[in-house]
């Protein structure tokens, strides 16, 4: 058991570190540190920068345009990104649909879609949730009906993040209304400019337009939009469970950013001539966060090591998601507390918006992290059922 990096890995780390130092746009850093999401065009700019270096898809195999890295390299990459206040890559194309396409898609689908995901030319959004199918996703009711060579899709999707900037959508729809819940569901890849698609913005509590409702009104798509086989759409999602370890590693390493921001706020806030950081109560709280983040990072490292040697990590990805979201919320909340009245100006009225507002935006945004991607309640159910035998 040791955590030493090999000489090759150390050299790789130097490479990655130098890249982030040179390429991370200064304008991103304070928002990234605050846990805010960047603007869509900034995500695209970042993707293109990575793509130019050959790192557009760090977790993909080389044959599909990926970097072909092993889990240790991925971990180094994400840790260094965190250190440099670099953003997380936008994950819906790269992590949610790309791997399903290269595992189950046709050669034509691979050729058509994969390169544009890696280059940042395509933006994919996810059409899974529906107004009445949230945590209980398998109860979704959007229908896809075969009509000659085509499918005609009708229904309503909810929480379709970035549908307003995306050009493509992967969606689950029911092709067999008589089959048991999961069995009648198929996966489709559609172009968002297809007639019948209507997008309505949904503004979230951070006052930002991230997400949308998408209405599908007799949307006619060719048979080639079906991915894999009819009725197997649900099972394709399972390939993601294994990959989820990489995604959670990418996001959890970023907690160091928020913690750094909170520590900096404590160091820079002077009350009555003394730094807040020197107040024992503040130092104590920051130390508590530090040790909880350390425990989480150790869980992530173990998970990545297991992934490297092909071992099952059991429910640890669910555990990491729960702890990461809780810590993200608590750390950003504390950061805002440290700011005190400095955090009051959520939206400036007189001067231009200042970075002082960003931790509060990040804090408010963090509320969704215990809801999305399988709420923390659902994650706990998964752990109880699959791992604890309850």
């Amino acid at each position, binding site marked *: 058991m040791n955590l030493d990096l090999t000489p090759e890995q150390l050299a790789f780390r130097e490479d990655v570190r130098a890249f982030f130092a040179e390429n991370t746009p200064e304008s991103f850093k304070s928002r990234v540190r605050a846990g805010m999401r960047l603007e869509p065009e900034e995500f695209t700019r970042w993707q293109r920068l990575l793509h130019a270096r050959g790192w557009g898809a760090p977790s993909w195999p080389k044959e599909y345009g990926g970097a072909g890295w092993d889990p240790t390299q991925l971990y180094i990459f994400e840790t260094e990104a965190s250190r440099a206040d670099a953003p997380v890559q936008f994950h819906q194309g790269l992590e949610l649909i790309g791997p399903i396409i290269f595992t189950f898609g046709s050669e034509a689908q691979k050729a058509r879609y994969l390169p544009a995901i890696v280059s940042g030319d395509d933006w994919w959004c996810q059409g899974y949730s529906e107004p009445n199918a949230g945590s209980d996703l398998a109860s979704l009711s959007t229908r896809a009906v075969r009509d000659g060579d085509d499918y005609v899709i009708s229904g309503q999707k909810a929480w379709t993040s970035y549908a307003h900037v995306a050009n493509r959508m992967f969606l689950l729809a029911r092709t067999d209304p008589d089959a048991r819940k999961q069995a009648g569901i198929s996966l489709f890849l559609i172009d968002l400019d297809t007639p019948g698609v209507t997008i309505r913005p949904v503004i979230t509590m951070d006052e930002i337009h991230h997400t949308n409702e998408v209405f599908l009104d007799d949307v006619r798509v060719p048979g080639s939009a079906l991915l894999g086989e009819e009725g197997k759409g649900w099972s394709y999602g399972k390939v993601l469970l294994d990959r989820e370890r990489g995604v959670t590693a990418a996001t959890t390493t970023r907690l160091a950013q928020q913690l750094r921001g909170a520590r900096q706020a404590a160091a820079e806030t002077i009350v*009555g001539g003394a730094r807040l950081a020197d107040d024992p109560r503040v130092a104590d709280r920051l130390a508590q966060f530090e040790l909880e983040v350390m425990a989480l990072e150790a869980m992530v490292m173990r998970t990545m090591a297991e992934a490297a040697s092909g071992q099952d990590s059991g429910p640890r990805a669910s555990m990491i998601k729960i702890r990461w979201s809780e810590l993200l919320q608590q750390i950003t909340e504390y950061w805002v507390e440290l700011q005190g009245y400095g955090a009051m*100006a959520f939206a400036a009225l007189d001067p231009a918006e200042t970075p002082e507002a960003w931790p509060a935006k990040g804090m408010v945004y963090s509320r969704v992290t215990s809801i999305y991607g399988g709420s923390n309640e659902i994650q706990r159910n998964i752990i109880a059922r699959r791992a604890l035998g309850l």
Partner: protein
Amino acid sequence: MNFDLSEEQRLLKDSAWRYGADHGDLTAWRARVARGEAYDAASWRRMADLGWLALTVPEDDGGLGAGPFETMVVAEAFGRYLMLEPFVSACVIAPVLLGAATDAVRARLLSGLVEGGVVVSLADAEPAGRFDLNRITTRAEVVDGGYRLTGEKSHALDGGVADWFIVPARTAGADDDEAGVSLFLAPAKAEGLTVVRGRAMDNRHNASLKLDSVVVPGENLIGDLGEGFGLLRKAVDHGLVARLAEAVGAMDAVHEMTLEYLKTRKQFGQTLGSFQALQHRAVDMAIACEEARSMMYLATIALSGDAARRRKVIAAAKARVGQTSLYVGRQAVQLHGGVGFTEELAVAHYLKRLIMIDMAFGNADHHRAELAKSLKPGAVAA
């Protein structure tokens, strides 16, 4: 021992709740916010007609001379229905302070305040003071015919819509001395005064101030020179307790919404409320609401007690209401899932309101530390 409202107080509460329900349409509320309005000006005038703005103003000054319990029931309705009108600043805090102003100033300001034409905001905090009320470095110097104020204020509740500011400034003593603090009235348009307005996440328009040699006439001094701190503390305590009532109103409302959602939203073929894990969460929210309400009563009663007891109870109440309200607000969003995170439901707005109330006049951590000070061996017994 009696926690009952009087008949008159109950009538006032009913009327305030009815008013809130009639004027609490979220779509209209969001439209006003989107138009950049800090509050509903027409509603503010109706509140004046109802006598709410005159509640705590003494009868001799044209008010109703009511006390903290009347303020409490109205403030609770403000929280319950997310009302944004500057009631606490103008009608709870300002009347306490203006009570010590000269007759001429009282005559001029209080009538406007009671009619809703004048908003007075207290600039209660400084950048280097954080939540410490006594840490005041803004200076006031005597000049011919008045005072010259110089310094910085990091926060003035409702300062974005204020016509007048009450500015605590130091006329003697060290930075954190309670002695040597004087209170001054300064018009928002005073020369040398820069008002930086900001919209907080609860959509309230607050401000920070820069005072660069702002000269005010001698009659704008409130109370005695150098003796203003006790009054400042008292006014803040009254405002703080009114905001606790606001928090309790918001907590109950958002808890009720969450219960309604748990009883109607179905997933996996059953209502969310049938899952025991979520039932227990709802129960913990109910306990939190009860604790907060109890603390609100204790703090409101303490406003009429002696200063040491008042400080201790209010510090404890502010801390506990802060803790319980954030729990309730966050769980309400969590249990609503995605929809709870949108601007389209009231739930998210309640959480943001509760976050801002916790920060107002010092957050839970600050007030727990204040309580700890009063519990130290040798501290003045209360």
